[in-house]
């Protein structure tokens, strides 16, 4: 069902946890629909220096969360904003069709975290 990459990220997820001193945090999903992803960022000089995730969800939800943190670490905010859910799925060698719409939300969580960071910067 899942690609080897998905299974790898599910089994050995990268960057699990929550940053204590985060610059921004974003959460998507809700427990009712079976997926919640929370991503926290630490940003310095417009660069995402550190990122962590916590996820309640299926294998695809965990793997996409893990993958997005890998993709984004060390990137600038602008680069990070170009990452889409689709790109995350692709980086995992694809997801089963049924999972594409329901558990592929990690980029959304990332964007929310960036928004949260940007709002904080403004205020």
């Amino acid at each position: 069902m899942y690609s080897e990459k998905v299974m790898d990220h599910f089994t050995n997820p990268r960057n699990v946890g929550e940053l204590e001193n985060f610059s921004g945090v974003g959460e998507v999903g809700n427990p009712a629909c079976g997926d919640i992803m929370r991503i926290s960022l630490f940003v310095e000089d417009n660069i995402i220096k550190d990122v962590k995730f916590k996820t309640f969800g299926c294998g695809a939800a965990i793997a996409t969360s893990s993958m997005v943190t890998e993709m984004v670490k060390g990137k600038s905010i602008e680069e990070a904003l170009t990452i889409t859910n689709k790109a995350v799925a692709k980086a995992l060698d694809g997801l089963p069709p049924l999972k594409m719409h329901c558990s592929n939300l990690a980029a959304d969580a990332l964007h929310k975290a960036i928004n949260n960071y940007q709002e904080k910067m403004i205020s």
Partner: protein
Amino acid sequence: MRRIYLDHSATTSVKPEVAEIMLEHLIQKYGNPSSVHSFGREAKKGLERARDQVAALINAQPEEIVFTSGGTEADNMAIIGVANKYSKRGKHIITSAVEHHAVLHTCEVLEKKGFKVTLLPVDEYGIIRMDDLRKALTPETILITIMHANNEVGSIQPIEEIGTLAREKGIIFHTDAVQSLGKIPVDVRKMNIDLLTGSGHKIYGPKGVGFLYVKKGIKLEPLVFGGGQENKYRAGTENIPGIVGLGKAMELAGEEMNTEMTRLAKLRDCLIKGLQQRISNVTLNGHPILRVPTNVNLSFEFVEGESMLLSLDMKGIAASSGSACTTGSLDPSHVLLAMGLCHEVAHGSIRMTLGHENTEEDIQYVLEVFPAIVERLRNMSPLYQEKRKECAECTLKK
């Protein structure tokens, strides 16, 4: 790697005796039972022996057994068959919220065609209340269809009471006994059952074969038309290897039920207790006593079902879940929701269904590996963090 199959309510392997008789009818006695010649007569003999074997386990007459392509077809045949045959008498059907989709979706299709369907609610254990049923009856009611044992949580419905009520009111009563056959006694006479569904692959028989018991005197419009097989109830060359396999499986189920179910009930209780002792926030779904001896269904709060399944699978343990993620829909198990569980707890349910091959050692192994799996996932879960924040929508059994 050690592999432990704990998904016997999804399907089973066939027993060696079943495989043997199937093979015989695949390779040697391969005739078409409609044929005049010796090959045909051999096939016919196998067919009729299987009919006897099936009838014997449920206390029916052989002529009352119609072989089908499985439990789903038998459910469809019962419900659509009664609806089409008796629609002049009335167009109201009563069922429950926890039925298998083979019943629920069939009822939905009839609803679109002008039938009225009442979905009885269930209590926190997944069991209907007789009072609700009594109140739902109307002069238009032509069919009550309530399953015997639930496939997800194993809860057992009060079939004999329902049957007695239906008989009293002259309403046809169908029960889906796919998950009770071979596990608890089924007696169509004693329980006043008019139509009963069974399936081969849940009782160590083959997939793709099942049966409908049709009490003498009950008429049905067929679902499939063609040759006059199965007393004109079900056209199509009979699946002889499947049918003789089903017959043998039913016979063995009857012989072994008492000892085997006592054994499995012990393993089941050991598994439930063991997991609840080793892991916090684990609740049992379904009735603690009115439950088939093979079913364990637990909710592990703060974790999602599919990720537990995958983790178990990597340890060689095969289980299933009421999580939406395993079905591709967005909603978790309709059975757990009907029992009043909140979505997130339903998403975190794991079903382990015991069978034939399972041993005490299997249970020990599961008890050993399960806690670490839950712990790992909980450490990843944002919900666990906010642990014990009460779930607004649900009425959790504490």
